[in-house]
């Protein structure tokens, strides 16, 4: 490099950047992206919103716009008319199934999370076998389980074959979430507890579970929602009694009144309620421990 290398100046157009607050206009790219996002949100929630709105029509209401009147007639109809199908039974079965699935998923994921912290022989194979059922198409998996039950001469019911089919979906999910949660768990917490005189069981009860609780609630939430609205894995495995998604599906085939929409509104509200409660619980736990995990 020669000592007299000329100092290269940028062309004149590279002006000084406007200082903070000097220029409050947004660049044109902001408006393009904002429009794109608005369209996305509309496509995502618009159709659902139509169903919720149409469910509040009165007796004259039909399945399409325009809206005719305003009442809660179809909600009453939903729970009183027999012709709309076994909504109440389907709802109960789906809730109970989701609860069983949630409990088993939480317990299974938690134990798997603990086990996979150490390497063990064949851990890779176990892991991929577990993840494999996530990739398998749900409908095919459901048919397989249905066939197996038939072959074994067992009746397919929502609390046996459907439960298994749902677990094949929720358990791998739960385990993956648990792995992410566990990765932030410091082993020295356990060692410290042991050092201070805690028994193995006390360590789990007083240290591991409380610290992991927000993650465990997240796994529960996953398990519940995945099971509650599962259709393809339930189709061939629930036996003679329908779960709620199956009931709704069969209603779309033979019910032509807005009570179908009312059902959509009610189930959505139920889902939001459960999710809301779980999120509130997580938020409270997070708030309580403030900026703790440093």
């Amino acid at each position: 490099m020669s000592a007299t290398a000329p100092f290269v100046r940028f062309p004149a157009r590279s002006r000084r950047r406007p200082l903070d607050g000097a220029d409050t206009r947004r660049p044109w790219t902001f408006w393009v992206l904002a429009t794109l996002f608005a369209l996305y949100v509309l496509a995502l929630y618009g159709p659902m919103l139509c169903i919720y709105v149409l469910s509040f029509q009165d007796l004259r209401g039909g399945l399409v716009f325009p809206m005719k009147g305003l009442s809660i007639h179809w909600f009453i109809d939903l729970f009183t008319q027999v012709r709309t199908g076994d909504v109440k039974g389907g709802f109960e079965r789906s809730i109970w199934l989701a609860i069983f699935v949630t409990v088993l998923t939480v317990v299974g994921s938690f134990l798997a999370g603990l086990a996979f912290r150490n390497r063990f022989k064949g851990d890779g194979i176990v892991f991929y076998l577990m993840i494999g059922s996530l990739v398998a198409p749900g409908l095919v998996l459901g048919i397989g389980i249905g066939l197996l039950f038939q072959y074994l001469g067992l009746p397919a019911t929502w609390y046996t074959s459907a439960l298994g089919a749902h677990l094949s979906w929720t358990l791998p999910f739960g385990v993956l979430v648990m792995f992410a949660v566990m990765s932030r768990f410091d082993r020295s917490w356990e060692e410290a507890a042991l050092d201070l005189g805690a028994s193995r069981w006390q360590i789990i009860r007083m240290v591991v579970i409380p610290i992991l609780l927000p993650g465990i609630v997240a796994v529960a939430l996953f398990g519940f929602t995945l099971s509650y609205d599962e259709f393809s894995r339930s189709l061939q495995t629930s036996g003679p009694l329908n779960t709620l998604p199956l009931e709704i599906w069969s209603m779309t085939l033979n019910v032509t009144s807005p009570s179908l929409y009312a059902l959509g509104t009610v189930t959505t509200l139920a889902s939001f309620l459960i999710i809301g409660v779980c999120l509130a619980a997580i938020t409270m736990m997070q708030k309580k421990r403030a900026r703790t995990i440093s």
Partner: protein
Amino acid sequence: MTDGKGDIELAGVYKRFGDTIAVDGVNLKVPDGAYCCFLGPSGCGKTTILRMIAGHEDPTGGEILIGGEDVVGLPPVERRTAMMFQSYALFPHLTVRDNVAFPLRVRGLDKAERYKTADEMLEKVRLTELANRLPGQLSGGQQQRVALARAAITEPRVLLLDEPLSALDEQLRIQMRTELRRMQRELGITFIHVTHTQLEAIALADLVVVMEKGRIKQAGAAREVYAQPRDKYVAEFLGGQNVISGKVQSVNGATLMVAAPDAKSIVVPLAGRHSISSGDSVDLAVRRDDLRLRRPGVPVEAGWNSVNTRIRAIEYQGAFVKVMLEGVNDAEFVAYLPERDFFTDPFEVGDVVVATWVAEQSLLLS
């Protein structure tokens, strides 16, 4: 738990992880109530020894005695040791009071009883106002005091500290160092402290144990290890010494002459070592603060050693001036000069100087 005494004895303690030997046959006695520092670079096995004393790791071979009783295989509680982890390992979901009371909780004490004891302990470490905070809301120094209180509440006979000051900034480290020593005096129990910081070890410890590659290189009082290093490794690791390598020219009575490049010849006291003869390669050490620099031509008295060299860099340190010299055989060669002396006739970088010291102050290393 036959004896309440916290003296520790390691006898041939050996630990292997797979193919690597972490601790290679260590023998050591730590008296009851001593402050002992294990000092060494990372991977030298010092933390492994600590964890074996704590019971979080089992030795592959050898015996660990606490209070005269072999504790290998016993859980930490029965050893009556308590460990303070490098990350402090405070439970994030429990308040400061609940953290400190945790050992009492697992022992089945009721809430009123354990809070009473915990509050007394919190007072000792001056954390009473923070009792209801969560660990995440505390500074590093406060977290450390909580960890200390939690470990001490079990009334252990040995407290094990794994790099307790490494997570703190410089100023706080010096402050907490004093605090640790104060706590140790107050509790009157044995402290084993693992560190890679030389200054920390010699400032705190009654007994400094210098380690390298799973072996103890030297164990002794801080002053002994610093001023009388046994070999080149200890001298270089503790710092404060210049190590010069050379060949023995001649042995005359109580001294020997060492030839080194750039030096006429260096006289070293033999200090009872009679197995050395001319032609042997030896290392010798001279303290950095024993060196005096003279300008060329200034006569050197009898009984002084001298080395011709040149000043490479000068660093002002406040209390003294650190002058880095061109070393013999490219080794580090540094003089610590008293600040006032230096500035009466300051040297400049690049000056040719004669580094001199009293021959008696040279130390022959093994």
